């Protein structure tokens, strides 16, 4: 699992720019799938025909990033956000664009910390004129924060693209296991989730799942500053009750809970009001005349910041839970 996550983290995939990652994702599932495709919006889809209801695993492929909006006179770049990075957290960070060009994000002089908007940020790519900068980059080019995959001890890892390469790795693992069990299963690595779940609806419309399971980062509050924690790192996968986009039906939540029990996996419950953890679940649930949706998320600290911490054991258990829930689902 750790190696899989690591290899997925090597790609840059800002929203709308997921295609750099698409081939790698397809390679990880192609050998066990009957059909694979990349749809019009960039969703990567693999399907294994088999027994039982059609269960679709959904993990977003994109990560939050920035996009170049202007190249100014002295070769400084102006950027806007693409996803949910807070501008104030980017000051001093390095950014790498889709074409490999790197730069440093900095702040206009005389800006108070509390007021920082993307308007106040610029990127220095080491060029001294608009013309020379324009040889390297163009308006519309996207980038992500440089924060590589890093191991923190035996099971914990961190990096800028944990959200949601860990989810992709869980989905790949669960998809392969379910395919080996000859279940009717699809996996979708969705596009443009971080800008508001824009891709997943199209894939859901095409697949009409009997059950969709979303795999995403579940924010933990087990860090200093919280008087009590509702979700903790290392305490097992998080079964979604509610996020900002969807309330999971009691029937599906119970099924996931039972599946965890059956496998002897400790699970937690995720209750996230609007804005604190929005996922693809809502867009899936409200496709056509409604789709049964559940969420199995991995605990993640510092979601929305430039580096997220995850425990690989949680991810492994999430995959086991998903396989059990998907293979025992009767519709």
């Amino acid at each position: 699992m750790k190696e899989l996550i690591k290899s997925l983290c090597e790609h840059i995939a800002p929203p709308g720019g997921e295609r750099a990652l698409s081939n790698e994702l397809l390679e990880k599932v192609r050998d066990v799938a009957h059909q694979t495709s990349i749809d019009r919006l960039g969703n990567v889809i693999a399907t294994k025909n088999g027994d039982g209801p059609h269960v679709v695993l959904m993990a977003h492929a994109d990560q939050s990033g920035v996009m170049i909006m202007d190249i100014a006179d002295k070769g400084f770049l102006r950027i806007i956000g693409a996803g949910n990075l807070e501008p104030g957290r980017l000051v001093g960070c390095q950014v790498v664009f889709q074409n490999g060009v790197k730069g440093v994000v900095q702040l206009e002089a005389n800006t108070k910390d509390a007021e920082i908007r993307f308007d106040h940020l610029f990127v220095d790519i080491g060029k001294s004129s608009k013309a020379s900068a324009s040889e390297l980059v163009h308006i519309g080019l996207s980038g992500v924060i440089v924060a590589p995959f890093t191991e923190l001890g035996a099971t914990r890892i961190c990096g800028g693209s944990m959200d949601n390469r860990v989810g992709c790795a869980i989905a790949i693992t669960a998809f392969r296991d379910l395919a080996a069990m000859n279940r009717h299963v699809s996996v979708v690595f969705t596009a443009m989730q971080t800008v508001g779940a824009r891709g997943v609806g199209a894939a859901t419309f095409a697949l009409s799942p009997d059950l969709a399971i979303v795999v995403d980062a579940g924010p933990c509050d087990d860090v200093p500053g919280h008087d009590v924690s509702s979700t903790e790192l290392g305490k097992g996968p998080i079964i979604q009750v509610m996020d900002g986009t969807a309330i999971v039906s009691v029937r599906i939540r119970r099924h996931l809970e039972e599946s965890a029990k059956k496998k002897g996996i400790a699970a937690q419950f995720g209750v996230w009001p609007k804005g604190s953890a929005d996922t693809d679940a809502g867009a899936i649930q409200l496709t056509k005349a409604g789709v049964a949706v559940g969420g199995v998320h991995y605990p993640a600290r510092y979601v929305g910041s430039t580096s997220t911490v995850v425990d690989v054991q949680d991810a492994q258990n999430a995959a086991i839970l998903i396989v059990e829930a998907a293979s025992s689902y009767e519709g």
Partner: protein
Amino acid sequence: MLLKRLTQAMGPSGFEDEVRGILREEVSPYVDAIYTDVLGTLICEKGRSQPGPCVMLDAHMDEVGLMVVGVENSGLLRFRPLGGVDPRILVAKRVRIGSSKLPGVIGSKPIHLQKPDEQKHPIPEDELFIDIGAKDKEDALANVQLGDVAVFDTLYDTIGDGCVKAKSFDDRVGCYILSEILKKSYAVPLVGAFTVQEEVGLRGATAAAHRIAPDIAIALEATVCFDGPFVPSHSEGTRLHGGPALTVQDGRTVADVRFLRFMMETATKHNIPYQLRRVKGGSNDFAAIQKSREGVVGGAISIPLRYMHAPAQIVSSKDVENAIRLVDAILQEIASGNWVEERFAN
């Protein structure tokens, strides 16, 4: 003159009748089928049985406006905005109300009677009223009904070098471009949608896209242009006379990079100037169309517009002309089979 007639017509969101009437009359002779959907979007089909991808061209008919929601005993009318109106621009403007286009003015307390501090703050919406000259409530209600809508009373005319001014270029300029395109013929199935209710949440386009189920869609829009010398280049959005603007990202869309490259290459090939929209928010109907059904390829072509949503707006005639040329060139290229997704993949 079509653009003049369109911009002087009244059509706030949900009340697009006059605009629809002008467009129906204008394009009917040139299309195979023309009809309205249940929301009021005017759909025009042309060569739909031809082979090739179905292309949907979208322009919204509605504009921001006001709705009369109450009458004071004095005969002054209370109103609420329809769509995103900046209350600061309302004061001391003339409006036209209802289907009879009754004139009215939005007044305020004269400067002599204001406290010094009052002038520093915008006048809140609930302190603004429309005056139609009514003597009292009864007189007002004999002339307007609650629910009547109002728009700015602005005349279309030329201004400066190669520019025109009017209200509601957002998005009558798109309607104009779409009308001109529908007068031409292409070897590709084409559906023009003059949509309703863009300003209150891309609502007409949402339903229309589901019904039309296009393969490719292009929204024809107006976009922010604030290109004075006092504005840093990253805040100007677009430049007037800089050519039609293509989207890389806005509030609701990240560009379909392949189609963006195709449009850029087409512009270059046909010697048409273009620019990229450098905006931080905002959106247009393409955002809704893109997510329809199994997803739609495409983008938006936008006309730089100074003073969006304000009573008097400016566009460059050259930009409008070049937008028509660009849409024309893109349709020709699609018809010749030159839109091949893979070619623009990297």
